């Protein structure tokens, strides 16, 4: 199950969702039962939920004092754009919690940890999905994230922010698409759209810290996930197969100068006011 194509073929043959085929793969891999694995993923979902609550506290401040406490501004009356407002607020909350040494689930990394929770919990509040449905969406996105990690990278130092927030956005788009009943092909298209639209994004942390611009990129990432899932669910087909977009991301990452790969030298990190 190295490629998205292999995932799709296996799911098609078994006549099940990508989440289900991912769960079956993990059962073989670790020898655990379906119930054990679902319970493990449910515990991760619970940590994600707590990290949203933790991050929404207005009092939070990071060690540098530069970030924290901002996501609380985005909820309530200040929310003007429907699900995007909530998704963005929750993504920022988790990213702020992370910057402030809160407990989070790396998904796929700590720097991009807000995107999946932002997508999942805003969708749950809007459409009433059960936790079980969210868990199965997480299995689908985990299988897709694993394929990205195997074919390209999910490390900002290797592939730039496209590899961290880009991968998280692709995983979140896939999760949303499965939740809203998209076909397996649509789920993979959703991932491909999100990756495609975040291609080339550099990793440029100010002072090398997981703060600026990382926490705001989580909001950008979840908005890309929503847009990608919206396209795929409406039946817009991605003209480039997901595996090819993943390989393009790898090639773009390889071509990125090291100053734009988590060294804190270029991009936002080089801005005068951030010195």
């Amino acid at each position: 199950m190295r490629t998205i194509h292999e995932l799709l073929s296996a799911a098609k043959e078994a006549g099940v969702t990508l989440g289900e085929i991912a769960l079956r793969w993990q059962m073989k891999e670790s020898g655990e039962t379906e119930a054990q694995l679902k319970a493990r993923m449910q515990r991760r979902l619970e940590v994600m939920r707590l990290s949203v609550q933790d991050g929404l506290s207005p009092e939070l401040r990071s060690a540098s004092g530069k970030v924290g406490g901002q996501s609380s501004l985005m909820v309530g009356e200040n929310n003007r754009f429907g699900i995007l407002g909530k998704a963005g607020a929750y993504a920022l909350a988790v990213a702020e919690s992370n910057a402030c040494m809160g407990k989070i689930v790396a998904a796929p990394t700590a720097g991009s940890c807000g995107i999946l929770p932002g997508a999942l919990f805003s969708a749950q509040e809007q459409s009433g999905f059960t936790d079980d449905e969210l868990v199965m969406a997480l299995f689908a996105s985990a299988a897709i994230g694993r394929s990205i990690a195997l074919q390209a990278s999910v490390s900002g130092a290797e592939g730039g922010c496209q590899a961290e927030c880009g991968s998280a956005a692709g995983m979140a788009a896939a999760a949303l698409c499965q939740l809203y009943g998209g076909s397996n092909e649509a789920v993979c298209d959703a991932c491909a759209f999100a990756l495609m639209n975040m291609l080339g994004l550099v990793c440029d942390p100010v002072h090398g810290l997981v703060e600026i611009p990382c926490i705001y990129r989580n909001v950008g990432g979840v908005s890309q996930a929503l847009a990608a899932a919206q396209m795929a669910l409406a039946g817009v087909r991605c003209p480039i197969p997901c595996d090819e977009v993943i390989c393009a991301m790898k090639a773009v990452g390889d071509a990125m100068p090291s100053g734009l790969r988590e060294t804190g030298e270029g991009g936002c990190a080089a801005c005068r006011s951030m010195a």
Partner: protein
Amino acid sequence: MDLFDVIGPVMVGPSSSHTAGAARIGKITRNLLGSQPVHAEIGLYGSFQKTYQGHGTDKALVGGLLGLAVDDLRLRDSLEIAKEQGFTYHIYKADLRNAHPNTVVLDVDGDDGRHINVQASSIGGGEIVVNAIDGLEAGFSGHESTLIITYADTKGMIASISGAVSAAGMNIATMKVFRRSAGGEAMMAVELDGVVSPGLLSFISDMKNVYHAVYLPKEASD
């Protein structure tokens, strides 16, 4: 890599490499020492040296040395906990050659008088490599059940130790051997499938020419 490596680990932020990896290095070093640490000299190299405060790398290393796991929120307050427990530490800039950018050198004293020197690197995603123990090359991840055995470099030692492991019905996944000099002190890092029994550990510890054997259990899945 399995699906819980992708959606995971559960960890205290902000960085899988600079925080979670650092905490794991601290905890593994504590387990290698085998007693309560009372003092640590902490040498930071590369990116660890430049950004440790903003990433809580110091808190994570100290917390790990005090036995805290990567998802333990007490990592935030580990420097205060260290004070309460009478654990002291000193951070300095380590000057290393050909080391990974996120590398730390720990010199730790235990309350039983034991001392250990560990060099380890955090290689991304919370994954680590223990490069060396007391100057002997190691190269293990701490993920699997691992036996670390120091012994006098003599004929047949590798065969006797692997024989003991096999007799206990265990399978060796990887094995790395390094010696200071021919006939000098040698070390073996053996990663195994399954759990090492106290009986096997004491059997190996009591073998002729074995100085010391430590068992690092496989990390429990959450």
